């Protein structure tokens, strides 16, 4: 009797055991990440100041978004950031990596250490440094232009609508190019050198090698780089870098910062949640496009 009871107890324990191991991670993630992620969708259907009563308004927030000039302006700057933070680092990164991976494998390690540094420094600190670099008077960039005789090009880079978005976007290119190079170099170094030798015998030039060997062989690296840069472009990187450099002036405000200001400055929590839903949809759109292109590539 006693032994039977203890064996059933043991059995129940051994069935539960795996769940006990994953429980701390799973519970904390569900409560503090997954639940907020999904509940955000339901917020987007209400009018709410965040403290009072929620009023269900259906799709009205989204209808309002369609004619919201501030939203479209934010959308537009995010598209420009997509070019500077996602497209440009990936294209330049591919070019640099294919140039570096084979020729300087040993010294590349030291260079890679440097390339990665912007990744470990708080974006707020990067923004603070670049604010000085772009400063109209006593700024680094204008002084450099003056030194090489291009002083007439000097301008308040962050202080005019023509240059501010590009100046902010370039900070993203600067910060993310090294990351792309490192991932691509690691990917290229895994490619079997025989593939390149065989293609040489077939008379392939280096450009053909790039398109027929290097690019298809990077099919695992490409989605990682694409998703990580896109998340940063839509999320915290653009948010923090804009907040420290221009605080959203001159058409630099990205969608995420607009959502923040709606929710926490203007008290339009429901409407802000609808903006976040759009942001989430864009990210998933890019992720889907990514898997689609990946499958097509294979």
């Amino acid at each position: 009797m006693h032994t039977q009871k203890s064996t059933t107890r043991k059995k129940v324990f051994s069935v539960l055991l795996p769940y006990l191991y994953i429980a701390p991670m799973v519970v904390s993630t569900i409560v503090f990440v997954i639940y907020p992620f999904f509940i955000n969708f339901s917020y987007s259907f209400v009018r709410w100041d965040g403290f009072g009563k929620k009023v269900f308004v259906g799709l009205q927030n989204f209808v309002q978004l369609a004619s919201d000039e501030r939203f479209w302006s934010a959308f537009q700057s995010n598209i420009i950031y997509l070019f500077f933070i996602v497209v440009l680092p990936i294209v330049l990164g591919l070019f640099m990596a294919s140039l570096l991976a084979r020729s300087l494998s040993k010294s590349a390690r030291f260079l890679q250490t440097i390339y990665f540094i912007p990744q470990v420094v708080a974006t707020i600190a990067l923004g603070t440094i670049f604010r000085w670099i772009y400063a109209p008077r006593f700024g680094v960039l204008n002084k450099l232009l003056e030194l090489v005789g291009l002083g007439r090009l000097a301008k308040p880079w962050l202080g005019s609508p023509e240059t501010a978005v590009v100046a902010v976007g370039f900070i993203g290119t600067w910060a993310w190019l090294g990351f792309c190079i490192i991932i691509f170099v690691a990917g290229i170094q895994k490619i079997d050198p025989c593939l390149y030798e065989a293609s040489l015998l077939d008379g392939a030039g280096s450009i053909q090698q790039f398109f027929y060997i290097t690019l298809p062989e990077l099919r695992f690296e490409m989605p990682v780089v694409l998703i990580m840069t896109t998340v940063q472009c839509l999320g915290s990187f653009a948010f923090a870098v804009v907040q420290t450099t221009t605080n959203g002036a001159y058409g630099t405000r990205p969608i995420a910062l607009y959502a923040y200001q709606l929710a926490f400055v203007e008290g339009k929590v429901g409407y802000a949640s609808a903006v976040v839903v759009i942001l989430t949809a864009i990210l998933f759109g890019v992720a889907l496009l990514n898997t689609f292109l990946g499958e097509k590539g294979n």
Partner: protein
Amino acid sequence: MTNWKKVTVKGVGYIIALFLALLVILPFLMMFLGSFRQHTDIIRRGPLVLPTEWNLNNYHEVLFKHHFNRYYINSILITVPVVVGSLIFALMAAFAFSFMNFPFKKMIFLFVVSLGVMVAEVFIMIPLFQLMNSLKLIDNLLAVILPSLAMSACFSTLVIHSFFMGLPHELFDSALVDGASSWQTLWKIYTPLAKPAIGASGALTTVWTWNTYITPLILLHDPAKAPLPLGLALFQGQYVADIPLLMAGATLTALPPILVYLLFQPQVVAGVTHGALK
């Protein structure tokens, strides 16, 4: 002919690579050198000269007059529990996901770990404020610690799981035959083995947690509770004009993660390149 071509390509590649490294380093060099100068000196002699004297006056002022000492303590109070806690959570979860079979394993992995890694703080900032407000945790460091811990645990689970999957499965069976409980097996056998994966995910989550900005911005309104990046942003809002003081503040914020990175450099890069790819 082809040999010459090879050498030229190599040379050009090297020059471009060095130029790029210089481009990456230059802003940090400006930050560091600028932090030792005086604002009047920058106005008088321009931005591109060395400091005339090397003293720590700016650092002293930023640390003790502008509360960066407080921000430092807050950053440490947030980062240490997040990294230690998330590694413990991740080791346990990765252990179960790697060596045990149980119903809904794949589904839980996909919908908790994979989704948890994908969700960035921007996507949850509004509900997170509501949640922490209802838990009465606004202006409490726990409000930042808890979500950071969960997100870091997801990432580390991914990295440690892929490391465990590369180990021979027999190790687990033989340890159990020896009479060790699974609990002992995890901490006495697998944890020491997983050192490279722990180093990689530990270093990366340290850096990320140290640099986190949006959650503190939303959840910590009391300036006395701000960690370094938020403190630097607050400081910048008040003292936009004083470049050397700002550079001293930026250096203080940037230095600890750079040191952690240089210390764990091989693991960090391996963690990013391999861990993220699996």
